[in-house]
């Protein structure tokens, strides 16, 4: 429950933050949420990762659909050497996930092992 709440919180706050702040603000959000609602390190990482993976994938998917996949077709060819907009969407989500996951992981290390759990 705590995990799901954290995930939703990270995703929603990140969505709001990105309207005004640079992309790396999502790392701070993940960090803040996990600092406030403590979790063990691997759970924290997965939480941050999943939140941003979902958020960025959905956003990218939505923007890509709006663009009729014109840009993603060319860019996926350029970077992935394969014409696959959906793969580019997933890669985008993955990168977001890494940023979010690392933010969350860092926060989980703030607490000493004895006090965890």
């Amino acid at each position, binding site marked *: 429950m705590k995990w799901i709440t954290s995930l939703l919180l990270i995703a929603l706050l990140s969505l709001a933050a990105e309207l005004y702040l640079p992309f790396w603000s999502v790392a701070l959000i993940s960090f803040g949420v996990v600092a406030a609602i403590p979790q063990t390190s691997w759970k924290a990482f997965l939480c941050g990762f999943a939140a941003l993976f979902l958020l960025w994938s959905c956003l990218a998917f939505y923007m890509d659909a709006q*663009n009729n996949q*014109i*840009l993603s077709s*060319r860019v996926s060819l350029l970077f992935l050497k394969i014409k696959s907009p959906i793969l580019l969407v997933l890669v985008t989500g993955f990168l977001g996930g890494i940023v979010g996951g690392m933010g969350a992981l860092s926060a989980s290390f703030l607490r000493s092992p004895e006090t965890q759990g």
Partner: protein
Amino acid sequence: MNLDFQELSGTVKVYLDNRLVPHVFAQKENDAYFAQGYLHAKFRLWQMEFQTYYAAGRLSEILGRYSGSTDLLNKVDRSFRRLGMGYAAEQALKAVEANPVTKGQCDAYTEGVNAYISTLTKSSLPLEYKLLGYAPEPWTNLKTALLLKLMTWDLAGSENDFAMTNARNLFSAADFELLYPTTQDSVDPILPKGTPLYGTSDTPGVKLRVPLHADSTYMMAKGSALPLEELKPDRDNGSNNWAVSGSKTKSGSPILCNDPHLGLNLPSLWFEMQISTPGFNAYGVSFPGAPGIIIGFNDSCAFGFTNAMRDVRDYYEIQFKDQTRKEYRYNNEWLPTKFRVEDIKVKGQDDFLDTVAYTIFGPVMYEPGYADPLNTGKYYACKWTAQSPSNELLAFNELDHAANYSDYLAAIQNLSTPGQNCIFASKSGDIAIWDQGAFPAKWFRQGDFVMPGIDSTYDWQGIIPQKENPHMVDPVRGFVSSANQVPVEVKRYPYYLSGNFPPYRGMEINRRLEQMENITAADMMQLQTDNYDLFAEMARPLFLKYIDTTNMEPAEKSYYTYVRDWDLRNDPGEKAPGIFNSWWHSLKTSIYGDELGQTKYPVMEPYDETLLEALLKDSSYKFVDDIRTPQVENLKQIATLAWKKIYPSIQQADTFGNLTWASFKDTKITHLLHINELSDPHIPIGGGTYSINAAKSDHGPSWRMIVELTTPTKAYAIYPGGQSGNPGSPYYDNFVDVWAKGHYDTLWVMSPGEQNDPRIQWKINFTKSQTTANHPE
């Protein structure tokens, strides 16, 4: 969308239609140029800025020293710097800023570009900036001048002086004339044979003195091989234009057509728009990076251009007193050199400083210290008309305003370099063409080779007076045209016409226009996209006469038959054009390869028309024999051998399905960075070098335009690209398919009352911002 700017003096309304063409309405002309700058930047910022980096010799700054295996620093940046592109742009800017009209125009344009740049954030930068990792710098009037110089270089920066000098060193005088004649028999000049040259007087304004001993010392000088690694614009840059008078059209009004052939790139070279102010209402294409409409029409007339192809760039050998290059010999004196230090920034490395010596002839482009692969140790200064101050922008500004023939004539006086065949038609019924530019008055063969620069003997003796430039106004035949052919009969013109003048498109256009009556816009579309190949018509008899068919395999025979039964049209699905062209190139190599191969240095390759005329006249043409073999070959043996050589590759192409003409020539529209994923490859289009539809693999009709000067004006056009420079936009390349099919879009000249027309998709209002802040006194 509403935008406020302090720089404006009034309101500008911009309506973008469903083709993303902006229609700009302004009360003040400079406000319109502000909006034009803003719109160019909005849709094409990366492209226009990148091209100024290219022109200024600054590619290493953003791309690093190497791009793939290309040494950008030495092959591109230093080449442009040493040619004096930056210097030339500064000279042009002086002329532009000395004129209040063009100064105001450029200032407003620059402010508009910068107004857009200031709205950009890191995330909203165009894609290419992100890929390369840099950001735009402020636009300046100098950047506009650089861009115009890049166009000048592309159109008037070509000459073969070093390759010709090598050829002169290799061949006897008689052979040289056979290989590189200065004119052809079959040529239909822009001014038909027999047309009076320039009415008033037949005494040329510049009386040329041919240097004493030019025949023995210049024409026949034998020397060592010369540097040849040059950065050259494409030789295929060319174009078609013609205007027919009302006597030949169905509507009774003139029709003007133009299709400039240039490099096929994305984002496209052109940006289409309408600019409407109380002073003028012009529609056509503009250069992203420069104010005004370049090719198009207004409410009274239409105008267009083809390249004049004249050689306006020559090299002079400079003698410096010593290695410091501080003084050079000129007319028995030692003159002081001026130095210009080129500071070339290189990404990830220290700056490269190149000190270029400037002489009375121009910048010393080649010298021992500049990457001359053959290291001849000689100094060559480059003299180029583009290095003199000139204000081409004024020509376009005045054309946009032109109401009649005399306005047009006044406007084109401002066009120095690149020289252009300026075509004109007006609603009042006039048609005209002027071969306009600052052309040096040269004596026979002057500037075909590098020249001695120790005195003024070989220098240009003047510029041909403007009124002696070839021109034709309202001719009886009812049309004027040009397709880069020679402007007048060579022997009648008092000055030497040096340059590269391909004859065939011009002959075909004139032959067709001659026959046409009751012409409609649809007829003109057909003509402009015609794939008929006049060169093949003239050359195929050689194919049929000299290839020996006796021992052909059945498959081989079938390829031969394709050409025999060919309708001489370079249509996309035909197999014959690929077979015929391969054979012709093979034949040419077989005939000239042995002679030209005598030197390890590249030499000038004779033109197709030279070989064709020689063989039609005389099958025992001197160069047919392969001088590397003991026996003497005849044309039949060589032509058959040329066929046998290409047969395997033809067969292979056919097996892989690549023999049909569109696949064989494989037209591609390439992104300026040569990134495949941002390019449009494999365009299914016919045509070719000698078709009116001159669509080659990487060059072609860059803007096909047809203007009927009826009231109201009816105009049709298309270009191989799209209005947006953003590869993620549906408007990036949406015109390409239409262009490839030979179709046209109907142009919409919007009137002020049509702001609710359903074609309008977006609106932008530019207003002068009301300053509310208190001004401290």
